[in-house]
Structures are given as structure tokens and as C-alpha cells.
């Protein structure tokens, strides 16, 4: 029955229209409550936040932090960690390594240290869901979950080709329930299957993907509709075809048009906004304005940016052929891991250099996105960690958005041709704290359909971040004064005070169990494990897990 009161802080709670007002927050049993009317109800703990800034705990809706692909990257790159800062053990907390792909305990502590209390891994093949869950159990403090790869799933492709929406819906629901996943993820829909079959890749959404007799357009339409029909809290999450290739803005535009008004989230949109031609690097340019115009006139579509930061990192993606492409372009070591019936993946070390025209333009394109989308509720901050950069760079992105002088300083240092190929130098907009609160917590929580996250209204989870107000934006966001999770202080003065396991968030959509027989028959024809050993049972859920309800119409 412990009650915590956080008094005197300046609240930024955009969901509830609170923009810098000084108010108290009361938390009881992990949930935000109305301030008690009875004078004799005293809080067990009072936190004095006078003069400080309060936001809901951060919500990262696209990162790569758990599962087979992430672990392969850890194993593959000892050099990435050897000289990097590390996480030392304390009497209470485990040790870990950082670099661009932190170990699991380090991941939980570092996110919490930044004031983030929820994060979702963006891409897990269902066959390895058990692995992702084990890693999430060892990722403390934050609430978490993951999206399930479906865009190259053989059963899904078969139903899409046959236009059997009922079977597609039931399969999707059964798959999410079996894997205890959160949302549908499409990565290069159809393209990974083409690659696995010996082809090159897909560049147009109307290209036939061969054996399965369907096109990326049909996959996009089929699964975006399915997400809506089975009432998933989050829209279909799409990594468009043709990532990274100059000229790919047309593929992105075609994908947007293909949605025909359906809800969707297009992820790391920066990598998909390139003008120019594949074989002429000189013509590379930004097409953000054209694509942002679409987002600005389609409230049902949301994006996260996938910001590139200069420095070394690791690219890791479910887009197998993209991995091969990056290996050829960079010459660096390459890991690829294909999963039967379901997915692929590619991992290659990456470097983004200020003096590289391409990299500098990528950096500028990311910032253009933030500055050209009018409604901050439609755009979430991300680096597609670690692809564009580490999540540890989020404070730097905040600084870039809030301080145009800082942006201009960097623009002066980068490759000069960026000035003519990007409109960044002319964008004066500076984000307010309210807008930052939207793109780092309130907006992502809304996009994910998490009614109890990203805000500080009554009934919300007691996840609160207290910052020291400062004109040094970077310092302010890098080192919160205090972080509270379900009403308990977990971080104070950059130290972990309490190790809690965090909750795995998942969905359990209903499905016609009569159709499971058909799924089983298909499964047993092709997989190499037993059907009964595929589903993940409840004991794998961190903290007991929380099922987020679906809203089936």
C-alpha cells in the first residue's frame, strides 16, 4: 500500500495537456492515483522535485536489444567492446559490456539510466521467440516486448496469395499468442524470401516473389488489414523494401499509397527517403519533403526516424540481402542467419563519417524528418539502435532538435555538398520540451496502444523521469536526477538503486481454433522441431508478463 508523492516538479505530460505546470504526482501500488483528498493519508516516501522537470518514463518503440540476431552481433564483435566503457558490477547490479551492442544487464541499466522505462525489440523470428524472452528476462528494470517477423513467413505468404483473409487473421493471432509477441513486423516483405531462394532482392512492390505467387504490395495490404481486423494495439510495423538504395523514396511512396488509408507505422524512415539513382552516388539527395507531405496529410500513418549519428556502430537487420549489400559496400565482416519458413538477418560493422557525403546526407535526412513532420504525435525518435547509432545518443538528438545553432555548427563541419542536397540549413524549427516529451514517450506509447504508458494521468503506470532543468540540454537528458519505475526509485544520481525484473508486454489475440489443424499440418511438413515445442509458455515472461488487450471490432 506504499504511497509515493513527487512534489513540486514541472510536469510535461502531453497526453493530458500538461505543459510545464507545477503539480504533484501521487503513486500507489505502482499506479498513478489522484492526490488523496483525506488529509490523514500520508505518503511513505516524498520526493522533492522542486525546480526539476518531470516527464513520463521514456518509451523506445524501435531498437534491437534481444534475440538471436543481437546475440550473434555480440559474439561477432569482441573488438567493439574491448576498449569501450564497461558496466562494473556493484553489490546490487551485474556487470556488462557496452560498445554498440550492449550485453543484456547493461542494456537494462543504461536505458533506465537515460530515463527510459519501456523498450521494444523490433524484429524477432517466431522460431527464436523463446531466445528473445530469455534475454528480456535478463534485461532488468525496463518493461519490454518484441515485434514478430511475418513479412517473409511462408504460411502468411500462402494465405496472402490465396487471398484467404480468415486464415491469415487466425494464423497471425495464433502466431502472436504462441510467441508471446507484441506486433506484426514486416521487413523487406517478400524480398528476404527472394534472396533465400537465390534471387537478388526486391526493388518494386509489384515484383512477383516467385514461388509464393504474391507481391510485396499484397503482403503490405494483407497484413496491415490483419493488424486492424484482429485489433492489435500497434499498427503493422513496416521496414520498406529497398532500404538504403538511392532512389528508394519511390518504393516508400508506393508503400504508403498501397496502404490505401489503413493504419501503419513505417520504421527508420530516414533509410528509405533517398533520391538519386542506385549507380550514381553523385546524384544522391533527400526526398524527405515529398514523403513528409504524405505523412502530414495521413494521420493514420506514423513513422520513427532511424537517425544516423557519426561514429562506429553495428548494422543488424532482418533484411538478409541488405546485410550482403552492406558487406559488399564496406568490405567488412558479414554475418547472415536465415530461419526456416520465417526470416533472415544480416549483421555488418558500420562507420558513419562526417566527411563522407553519403553519411552526412543520411544524418541530415534524419533531422529533416523531425523538422518537416508537422504533428509530433506522428513521429517517434529512434536511431534504429544500433543501426544508425546507439540509443545512448538520444540526448544528442534532443540537443540537435532543440538547438538550431548546434545543428548549424555541425552542418559547417560535414561534407559541404550536403548543404545543396538537403534543406536542413533552412530549417529553423526548434523543438520545445513538450514536443520532446511527445516524440520520446507520449507519442510512442500512443502508437503502441499502451494506454498506461507515456503519460502521468490517473491509472498510468508509475514510470516517471525527473530531470535537472538545465540550458545544457545534453547534460540534462544524459543524466536524469531520478528515475522511478512502478512507483519505486530505480535510478538516483546515475546509480541503480533497485533491480527489478521489468515486465514483458505481449498480446494474446483470439483466433478460430478450428484453423489450428491446418497450421499444424503445414508446420509438420516443413519445420524441424515439433509443433508442441514451438509455443512459448508463461514462465518465460519477465516479471510475470502483462497481456495488453486487443480491440477486435
Amino acid at each position, binding site marked *: 500500500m506504499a504511497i509515493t508523492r513527487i512534489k513540486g516538479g514541472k510536469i510535461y505530460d502531453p497526453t493530458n495537456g500538461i505543459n510545464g505546470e507545477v503539480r504533484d504526482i501521487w503513486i500507489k501500488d505502482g499506479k498513478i492515483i489522484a492526490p488523496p483528498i483525506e488529509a490523514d493519508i500520508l505518503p511513505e516516501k516524498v520526493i522533492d522535485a522542486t525546480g526539476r522537470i518531470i516527464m513520463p518514463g521514456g518509451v523506445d518503440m524501435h531498437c534491437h536489444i*534481444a534475440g*538471436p540476431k543481437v*546475440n550473434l552481433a*555480440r*559474439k*561477432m*564483435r*569482441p*573488438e567493439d*567492446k*574491448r576498449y569501450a566503457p*564497461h*558496466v*562494473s*558490477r556493484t*553489490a546490487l547490479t*551485474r*556487470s*556488462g*559490456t557496452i*560498445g554498440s551492442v*550492449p*550485453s*543484456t*544487464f*547493461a542494456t537494462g541499466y543504461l536505458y533506465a539510466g537515460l530515463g527510459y522505462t519501456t523498450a521494444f525489440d523490433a524484429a524477432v523470428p517466431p*522460431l*527464436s521467440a*523463446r*531466445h528473445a524472452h*530469455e*534475454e528480456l528476462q*535478463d534485461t532488468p528494470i525496463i518493461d519490454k516486448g518484441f515485434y514478430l517477423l511475418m513479412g517473409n513467413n511462408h504460411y502468411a505468404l500462402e494465405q496472402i496469395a490465396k487471398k484467404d483473409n480468415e486464415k491469415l487473421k487466425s494464423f497471425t493471432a495464433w502466431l502472436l499468442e504462441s510467441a508471446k509477441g507484441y506486433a506484426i513486423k514486416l521487413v523487406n516483405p517478400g524480398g528476404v524470401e527472394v*534472396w*533465400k*531462394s*537465390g534471387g537478388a532482392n526486391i526493388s518494386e512492390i509489384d515484383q512477383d516473389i516467385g*514461388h509464393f505467387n504474391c507481391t510485396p504490395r499484397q503482403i503490405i495490404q494483407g497484413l496491415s488489414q490483419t493488424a486492424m481486423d484482429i485489433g492489435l494495439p500497434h499498427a503493422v510495423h513496416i521496414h520498406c523494401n529497398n532500404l538504403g538504395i538511392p532512389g528508394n523514396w519511390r518504393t516508400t511512396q508506393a508503400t504508403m499509397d498501397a496502404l490505401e488509408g489503413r493504419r501503419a507505422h513505417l520504421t527508420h524512415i530516414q533509410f528509405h527517403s533517398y533520391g538519386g539513382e542506385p549507380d550514381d552516388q553523385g546524384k544522391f539527395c533527400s526526398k524527405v519533403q515529398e514523403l513528409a507531405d504524405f505523412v502530414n496529410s495521413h494521420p493514420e500513418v506514423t513513422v520513427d526516424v532511424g537517425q544516423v549519428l557519426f561514429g562506429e556502430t553495428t548494422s543488424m537487420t532482418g533484411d538478409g540481402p541488405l546485410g*550482403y549489400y552492406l*558487406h559488399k559496400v564496406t568490405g567488412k*565482416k*558479414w*554475418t*547472415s*542467419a*536465415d*530461419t*526456416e*519458413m520465417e526470416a533472415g538477418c544480416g*549483421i*555488418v560493422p558500420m562507420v558513419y563519417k562526417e566527411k563522407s557525403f553519403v553519411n552526412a546526407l543520411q544524418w541530415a535526412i534524419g533531422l529533416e524528418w523531425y523538422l518537416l513532420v508537422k504533428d509530433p504525435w506522428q513521429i517517434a525518435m529512434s536511431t534504429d539502435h544500433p543501426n544508425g547509432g546507439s540509443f545512448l545518443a538520444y540526448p544528442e538528438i534532443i540537443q540537435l532538435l532543440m538547438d538550431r545553432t548546434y545543428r548549424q555548427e555541425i552542418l559547417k563541419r560535414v561534407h559541404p555538398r550536403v548543404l545543396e542536397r538537403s534543406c536542413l540549413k533552412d530549417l529553423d524549427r526548434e523543438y520545445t520540451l513538450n514536443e520532446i516529451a511527445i516524440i520520446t514517450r507520449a507519442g510512442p506509447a500512443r502508437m503502441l496502444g499502451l494506454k498506461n504508458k507515456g503519460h502521468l494521468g490517473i491509472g498510468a503506470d508509475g514510470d516517471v523521469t525527473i530531470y535537472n532543468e538545465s540550458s545544457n540540454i545534453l547534460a540534462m537528458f544524459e543524466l536524469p536526477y531520478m528515475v522511478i519505475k512502478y512507483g519505486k526509485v530505480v535510478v538516483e544520481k546515475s546509480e541503480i538503486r533497485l533491480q527489478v525484473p521489468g515486465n514483458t508486454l505481449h498480446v494474446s489475440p483470439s483466433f478460430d481454433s478450428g484453423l489450428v489443424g491446418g497450421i499444424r499440418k503445414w508446420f509438420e*511438413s*516443413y*519445420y*524441424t*522441431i*515439433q509443433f*508442441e*515445442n514451438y509455443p512459448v*509458455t508463461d514462465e518465460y515472461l519477465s516479471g510475470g508478463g502483462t497481456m495488453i488487450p486487443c480491440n477486435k471490432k
Partner: protein
Amino acid sequence: MQNELKVVSNATCTFCGCVCDDIELTVEGNHITKAKNACVLGKAWFLNHEAGEGPVARIRGKEATVEEAVEEAARILVDAKFPIIYGLSDTTCEAQRVTVAIADWVGASIDTTTSVCHGPSGMAFQGVGEITCSLGEVRNRADLVIFWGSNPAESHPRHWGRYSTMPKGLFVPNGRKDRTVVLVDVRRTKSAPAADIFLQIKPRKDFEVLWMLRALVKGLTINEADLIDTGVTLEQLQNLVDRMKACKFGVLFFGMGLSMTRGKHLNVEAALALARDLNAFTRFYANPMRGHGNVTGADNVVSWQTGYPFGVNLGRGYPRFNPGEFTTTDTLARKEADAAMIIASDPMGNFSQAAREHLASIPFIALDTKETSTTRAAAVAFTTATYGINVPGTVYRMDDVPIPLRPAFESPYPSDEKILRALEKKVLHLLQAKLQASN
């Protein structure tokens, strides 16, 4: 419990890296009398399983209570200056995770049987990367399957039948008939008759031959003279290269013949690089034939918790990685360890003389399901229940696919995880007391 008969379906065998999960066990009381679908190794694993004997806990050979033994074990670890922890391949991921926690708290070196098996493959992977796939991809797509330095007929008897050469698959409708199987080894093993092509290369020439295959794939000229002493001819190699380039999906399975012979990680690097190079022409993969049931799980757990796969030291309060420095054969043979914990492994039975002598001279804890030369020499020994037969949990197949265990019957002995959790608690307690005493 007597004569109670039950059938456990979809049980998982953890004898080898195939981790077959389609075993049907007939259980009578505390004996498994049938193991349908199991191969000869699996049958031995299930049918010859003997319940442990004697007390759960022993201190220096004498029976003790679990509490006393856990206390003594915790003391050994906490008081040591350079404790090492080794083994872990024959236990659940749940137990492995607690073990790494203990290593973290006491600042130990943590190493698994990977370091004497496919450790070099892990190191090669760090140098080159790897192009790999799950076994079902092989089943459904592979038309060219190569085994190099591996004898699956004896080491992984169901590999061919369940995954790699026999099964019909989505794009391999005629099963074996749609595939070409190649075996490369230094002697004609029991696997050879099943192959379409057998290349007998001379011992210690794997690296050279793999490198020449790479050259041929890239269209470079190789002279017959370059192949003297390799045991193979240019024609044989060119033929193989032509098949590799022309296949739709090729996979090279490699075993100890590459990772544990002259060259070790360099041999594996050559194989991984070859598979990578072939992706300019087709889809080509290189997969290790991993041994013990859950060594892949051990790699995964140590990697996600520390960032490194094996040979990890936590003595400075954070993970450091250095094969050769922190791997167990070395920390023992160089007499660096002053205490140890050995879990589900028998180094006293198979390590070098120098390592064994040193291990015998330091206090160490052993957890095993049966008596071994390691448990007999231990200061503190625990008899534990067997994973997969008595104990549920998670294991990883050789291709990284995670699979649950379905135990057959309960054991009077505790699981590794239970002992290790008690040990972790005690270790933390002693460490806290130590901290308070020094304040």
C-alpha cells in the same frame, strides 16, 4: 511411483547437438524403457540413464547436508583470488544463467566446454563473420550438402535423416534424390558410404585445400603442383567448385576435423570465408556440427550476459575476453586458478596432465549427475538431477534454435539450478559480510 507407466511425447534428447525433440519416452517408475525415434546415442542416453547414487552433497568425500556443502562451496569461491568456473554444456540455460551470476559476484573466470570444442569456430566467426542458417533451411532448400572433418554417422546419427540429406523439403521434393552429398575427411569413416563424393585429404592439409577452393571460386589459376601432398587433384577440386557455384543452396557442415586440428580457427576461417565468397554466385552456408546438447546454450547465455562467448574473466569487476588467457585448460595448466567450480563436465577425466594435476591441488566444487573422476577429487561435490530426463528447462540446438525440455520422471536429487541458486544466495551473503567487516 512403482511400476507407474507413462508416455512422454515430444521429449528432447540432449546427447548431441541435434537436440531431437520428437522422442517418445515410455517411462516405468524411474526408468525409461523405450525411446522411440531416438538414435543409438539417444537410446543410450535415455535407457542407460542411471539415477544418481549416494548423498546429494559431500564435503571432502564425506556426506554433508546441502546447507553445509553450499556454505563450504560459497566460502571456497568467495575466499579465492582467481576462481574459475567451467563446464556447463550439459545443463539447462536456467542453470547456466545462475552460474554466470555467481561468476560475476565473485569475479571468477567463466568458461565452457566450447573452449575445447568449437571455441576456434567462435574465434573464426569473430574474424570473418559467418553465413549460417537453421537446419530447416537445409531440409527445405539444400541441394548440395558437404561435410568436412565431421563423421555424422557416428557423432550425430539423426542429422542426415532428420535435417540434412534425407528429408523431403519444400524445394527439395524428392529428398535424397535431389541432393548431392560430399564428404571430406582424412580417413574413410563410417559416413563415407552415404556420400556421393568422398574426398580423402591428407591430414593437416585442410587449410590449404579450403584456401585453394576459395581461389578457384574466384577464378584464379591453381597449378596441379600446388596440390602435391594434399591428397586431392585439381580436377576433383574444380569439380567441387563447379557444383558449389551451380547449386541452388549449398551448405558446408564442419566438425572437430577442422576446429581441433592443425590450424584450428584458421581452418574454420577458411571454411567460413569460402561459404561467404560463394554467396556471389548462389546461397551458400557454413554451419558447425556442435557437440554436447546444450553447449550452444552455454555460448548464448555467456554472450548475452557478458558480451563474450567463452574464456571470460570477471576479476576486475567487468567482463574481459581472451582465449588462451582465460580458457580453462590454460588457467589450470599455468597454475593460475586457486579455486574452481566444475559443472556438468569431467576435466579430471580428459584434460592435460598439467591441468589435472593443478586442479587436484586446489579446492574445487563439482556438480554432476553421477560420480566421475572430477567429483571424486572435489572438495565439495553435489549429485544433481539430469536435465531433460528429470529437469525441465531450455536448451539450444546446434543451429541456435531454442527448445524446451520435457522431463520423464522426477529425481530425488535437486537440479543444478536449485543448488546454484542456493549457492548464489550464500555467496552474496558472504560477500556482504566481508564488505561490512572491512568497513
